[in-house]
């Protein structure tokens, strides 16, 4: 156990703080679009060049190329949170596809796709879910027929976040019609410009079109656009899911949110009294702070285990469930603290922070469902973490729910 900062660490922290102060004018604005704008891309490039984003991705693939260093990652996260500065991009490309390619992609795939993905210029979407295959993802039926040096794809995906703005998709298709459920899937990556792809946006309750239906009609994908082997898509997909769950439950995001909510409670007054002096709000804030601290500590434990190559066990399995629920509750407190101001939305007078807290409250509920629902997470924690018996219906050894 070693958490205190050494003088060299403090110097590094000063450097990060200096950087953030010096460049405060280049912080990109929060963007409504799911596609990074020019100022976000410029900021991301600057962060990579300093090692504050894509820190451990090798230089040949457009990263900063540093060795994993727990204390530096922690200092960076803290300094950004403390300054309220926008951190490195987190999207399905950067946070999910890049680590998957690093782990399982070919050299050519890594060189071609990782650099523009890291800068935010190449935007990805995740084509997993289908109307008939949600929690039971391996029931997917989208077909990829073998036609010589291509797969010909026909079928439909749904709930595909960002598909309307994405350049590329990583997609699960059934290429081995005869194989058992989990053994017939391949993981393909292809351009959203490929002929035969139709994207129909779906509005969520936030009022924005955050995800889509995607239809494939005779979409031709070259065979070298596969990650892993034919029929191994389930395995590759689970590698991606692991990173997705880490992103969705990121404790640094919860910590940043907690700071913002603390500021709201200090700033907002009712009958002339600051809300922070209302013991009921304060108690809710403190309950949530304890949970944030616990998840931060759990995160440090996970990073240490990863760095030492030790199995993370339960502490890893709980991240998505606990983190998403925590974020949702944090947004709920912010709304309650704002009261009638907290329901103002869609622009207009007195709206606070562009209605972000309502947006988060709704969108976070989506994240409790997406990436494997809370109920599925509990199944996983119980079955893989605690060794409880599997569902009778999932008794087949390869039946791993997402």
């Amino acid at each position: 156990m070693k958490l205190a900062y050494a003088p060299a660490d403090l110097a590094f922290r000063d450097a990060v703080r200096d950087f953030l102060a010096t460049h405060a004018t280049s912080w990109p604005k929060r963007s409504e679009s799911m596609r990074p704008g020019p100022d976000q891309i410029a900021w991301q490039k600057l962060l990579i060049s300093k090692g504050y984003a894509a820190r451990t991705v090798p230089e040949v693939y457009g990263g900063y190329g540093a060795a994993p260093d727990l204390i530096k990652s922690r200092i960076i996260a803290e300094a950004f949170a403390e300054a309220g500065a926008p951190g490195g991009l987190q999207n399905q490309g950067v946070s999910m596809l890049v680590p998957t390619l690093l782990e399982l992609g070919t050299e050519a795939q890594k060189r071609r796709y990782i650099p523009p993905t890291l800068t935010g210029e190449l935007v990805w979407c995740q084509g997993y879910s289908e109307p008939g295959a949600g929690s039971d993802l391996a029931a997917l039926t989208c077909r990829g027929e073998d036609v010589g040096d291509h797969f010909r794809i026909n079928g439909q995906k749904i709930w595909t976040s960002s598909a309307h703005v994405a350049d590329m998709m990583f997609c699960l298709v059934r290429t081995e019609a005869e194989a058992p459920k989990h053994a017939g899937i391949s993981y393909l990556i292809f351009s959203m410009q490929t002929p035969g792809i139709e994207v129909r946006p779906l509005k969520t309750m936030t009022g924005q079109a955050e995800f889509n239906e995607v239809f494939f009609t005779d979409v031709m994908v070259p065979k070298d656009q596969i990650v892993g082997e034919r029929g191994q898509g389930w395995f590759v997909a689970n590698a991606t899911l692991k990173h997705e769950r880490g992103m969705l439950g990121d404790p640094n995001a919860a910590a940043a949110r907690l700071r913002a909510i603390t500021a709201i409670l200090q700033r907002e007054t009712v009958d002339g009294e600051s809300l922070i002096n209302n013991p009921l709000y304060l108690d809710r804030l403190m309950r949530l702070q304890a949970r944030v601290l616990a998840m931060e500590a759990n995160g440090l434990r996970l990073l240490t285990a990863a760095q030492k190559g030790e199995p993370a066990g339960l502490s890893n399995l709980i991240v998505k469930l606990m983190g998403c629920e925590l974020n949702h509750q944090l947004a709920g407190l912010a709304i309650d603290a704002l009261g009638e101001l907290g329901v103002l939305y869609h622009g207009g007078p007195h709206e606070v922070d562009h209605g972000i807290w309502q947006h988060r409250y709704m969108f976070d509920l989506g994240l409790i469902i997406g990436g494997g629902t809370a109920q599925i997470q509990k199944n996983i924690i119980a079955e893989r973490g605690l060794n409880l018996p599997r569902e009778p219906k999932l008794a087949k050894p390869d039946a791993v729910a997402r």
Partner: protein
Amino acid sequence: MDFGLDDDHRALQASLTRLLQRHAPLAQVQAVAAQDEPTDPVLIHALADQGLFALLVPTDCDGLGLGLLEAALAAEALGACAAPAPYLGPVLSGLALTLGGDAALKKRLLPAIATGSLLPGLAISEASSGARRNFGVTASGGRLTGTALAVVDFATANGFVVASRCGGLFWLESDASGLSCNRLTNIDRTRSLGELQCHDTPALALDHGDVGQTLRTVENAARVLVAADTLGAASTMLTRAVAYAQERRQFGREIGSFQAVKHLCAEMASELEAARALVWYAAHAQDTLPDQATLLACHAKAHLSEVGTFVARTATEVFGGIGITDALGLHLQFKRIGLNRQLFGAPERCRVDAARAQGLIGQRPPYPAQAQV
């Protein structure tokens, strides 16, 4: 940076757990808990031999000079088997003496604590939980008057560290004049509580150094150790509930294959796993991150009280009817968690203290100096 236990920590856990398996198996704990005077001299002796009471005592006073993380791991192991033995009283009194006693007093008392021959009770309830009703002692001219409630590790105590209502700390001999001691029976039969009634009772002020800081340090340590005890107790309840869910069959299948039961277990495990990291973090911070020590101690105590309460009731539920009986011994941990929740500040108070520690609200107002007896 490194977050986790090292080999020394694991060795400490393992040796203590082995000792407790030998000297405090469930049947033994249940037998002790059923006695009128639930203490177990053989167990205390074995723990003392192992150096349990020496953990925090400085090496120049014959102690092991270890930190609060080690002490918290020990507390966790004791909570896990609901060991009927004193721990908080001697260890935290030793800490108060180390920080606030003069050299002569330390040389006299600390080696005796390290060997386990001196097992002081700790009477800081009025400072850490707040003074109830008219409880609390006031100090004047080296003499204490008033009643201290909820003195921990009372049954075996042969000396006391007492906090006055004004936040002073004192060493009180058990045979001091004008002192009367009353046992208070509590739900947890594995640890004892009592009250001290002082009538112009002579006591030694532990006023070496910054008294406020000493009290704060002891209170923080107390909160962390109690949180760790709850962590251990709750982990045992979860482990036993999971084992039962794997073995008990109804409707032709293990009850653990029913999602209603499976999800209860997953929720307990998720809460406890995150809480475990918080306890380690808070314990380590007491010795290494002074800026965060109070904040983390308050949150660890409050959060583990909530998680512990949740696990205590939920694990019991997994067992069905037999969970409510005393046949399985699960009630030992249930009650331990119940006592821990109230000791050294219930969660509501700890959360207010957490807010104070980061300047969100003003400091604790001073106690009304005068206790009416």
